[in-house]
């Protein structure tokens, strides 16, 4: 703000308001995060007495308790299995589809593309109950498998829109040269399209990683409370008990849940921001 004050032409009131707003909001973002990180090293008494003080000791026992109590290691393993399997399935479905849509000129291709584009309008959540019936009728109720099948379907519209727009940008001549050499469609996809689409694939993977890892209601309803199958997002809230929640343990569990996403964000910050932005814009 000191800097803005030096600029004579700026409407100071305006810039101070939006600047103050911005930093207040940032403080509101940081303080809860700080609070929950320090709380995960304290017991209830310390949390209630001095919520913002640094913990006296960096005691990891809350983490141990949280991990034991909610079987978080198992839950993380389940989340990893579900997320990775769903990501692979998403690519297996979306890549050939985008390839076909990018190359088709006919009315049918346009129609199929519109079907997927309309998917943005389907609030799949409203249909949670029929989805649950579907799981039951396939005999896949209370299993990770159904969620692995379902999540790619929720991700297909956006994935296909992003990948199709990438593949459209690939010059036809490249493909024609390959076809001339007798390559089949599948070979063209693998050897010509895939290498060029790597940034698009990365975007799709990052976006869907976030949405699959963070999915809550579908796993809650479809996988249920079975500790052998449930994902981390379903396991975490079980640390909250109506009478006498141990907040230190709850916050430790929350921190544990966030670590994988946070690690990915720190390593791939740029790519992830770009992915999230392009995801919304393309959508």
């Amino acid at each position: 703000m000191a800097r803005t004050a030096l600029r004579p032409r700026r409407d100071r009131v305006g810039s101070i308001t939006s600047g103050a707003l911005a930093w207040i909001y940032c403080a509101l973002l940081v303080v809860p995060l700080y609070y929950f990180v320090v709380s995960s090293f304290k017991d209830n008494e310390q949390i209630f007495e001095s919520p913002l003080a640094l913990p006296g000791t960096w005691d990891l026992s809350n983490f141990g308790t949280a991990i034991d109590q909610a079987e978080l290691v198992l839950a993380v393993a389940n989340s990893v299995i579900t997320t990775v399997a769903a990501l692979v399935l998403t690519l297996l479905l979306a890549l050939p589809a985008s390839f076909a849509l990018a190359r088709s000129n006919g009315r049918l291709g346009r129609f199929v593309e519109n079907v997927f584009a309309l998917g943005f309008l389907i609030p799949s959540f409203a249909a949670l109950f029929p989805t649950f019936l579907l799981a039951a009728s396939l005999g896949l109720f209370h299993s990770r498998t159904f969620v692995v099948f379902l999540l790619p379907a929720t991700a297909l519209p956006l994935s296909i829109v992003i990948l199709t727009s990438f593949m459209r940008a690939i010059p036809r001549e490249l493909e024609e040269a390959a076809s001339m050499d007798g390559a089949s469609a599948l070979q063209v996809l693998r050897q010509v399209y895939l290498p060029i689409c790597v940034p698009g694939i990365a975007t799709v993977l990052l976006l869907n990683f976030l949405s699959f890892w963070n999915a809550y209601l579908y796993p809650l309803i479809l996988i249920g409370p079975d500790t052998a199958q449930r994902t981390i997002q379903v396991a975490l809230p079980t640390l909250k008990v109506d009478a006498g929640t141990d907040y230190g343990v709850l916050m430790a569990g929350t921190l544990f849940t966030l670590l994988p996403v946070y690690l990915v964000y720190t390593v791939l910050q740029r790519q992830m921001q770009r992915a999230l932005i392009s995801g919304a814009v393309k959508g």
Partner: protein
Amino acid sequence: MRAGLRKGSTVTALTDVASSAATTPEPSPPPARGARTPLRERFPGFALPALVWYAVFMIGPVVAMVVIGFLSWPGMLVEPGFAGLSNFGRVLADEKFWAAAGNSAVQIVVGLPVMIVLAFLLAFYVVQKPRGHRVMRYLLFIPALISAPATAMVFYAILNPDGLLNGVLRPFGLDGTAWLANPSTALGAIIAVELWSGIGYSAVLIAARLDGVAPEIVQAARIDGAGDWRIAWGMYWPIARDFIGVVTMLQFLSMLFNSAQTVLLLTQGGPGTSTTTLSYLVYRKAFVETDLGYSQAVGLILFVLGLLGMGAIRRVLRASH
């Protein structure tokens, strides 16, 4: 779902807007091609597996939702029968439904404009590249990464009677309350949680659009003596208006449909019906009370409200140029 949702449906957006905003040029009309690949050109066969998958797992359940809305189905083990419009009659005569509709309306009428206006001001500030704007962009993204359960757990700890908020108020001699258990603050608390996580992400999206505004125009306006406020609302807003419309729709859908998660995790719709939103009502009627026809009838109403709301947002924030 929000991050799951959120991002799953964060990602929800609009076709028509998307096509108008699409950056990729339409493919040029095909040159006359040999008869070698005609079928492949006309029929996108490789899209078939994805299409079938999509039809089974997404379109199927939505169609089923419509059908179940017209069935009398009072419990999972009961044989459903045709009910005509009676579910809708029951829904519309139910006080709970109107309470939920009122809560959803407050949530959207109050929460959405606040979110979008604050996000726009934040984006405007960040785009000016003030000191620390990089840190700010980094921070603004954080809520978008955190899942609904993790966000809810953090706020559960903050808003409980012995939590951070009351702890901060105490030294000022202010008595806090059990924010989530007090009927007069519970809905506000839910909206606050949604604002907390939604403003930053919206701001980042809007900033991405504002970054594209040519600095020369802004420079020229400044030389003419325009202040920040006028530059923000007089220049940036009209330029980014259609895009802000897209972000608004995104957040609208997320509030309307995904609030069920936050409500389920924090208040279960209570105390009384003070935080029961329409989407939570759909969940509750289906999975707690197993009044399936009722639930899906509300689901259908919600679906239609979603479409109407998006139409309205589009009308209000249509590109002005």
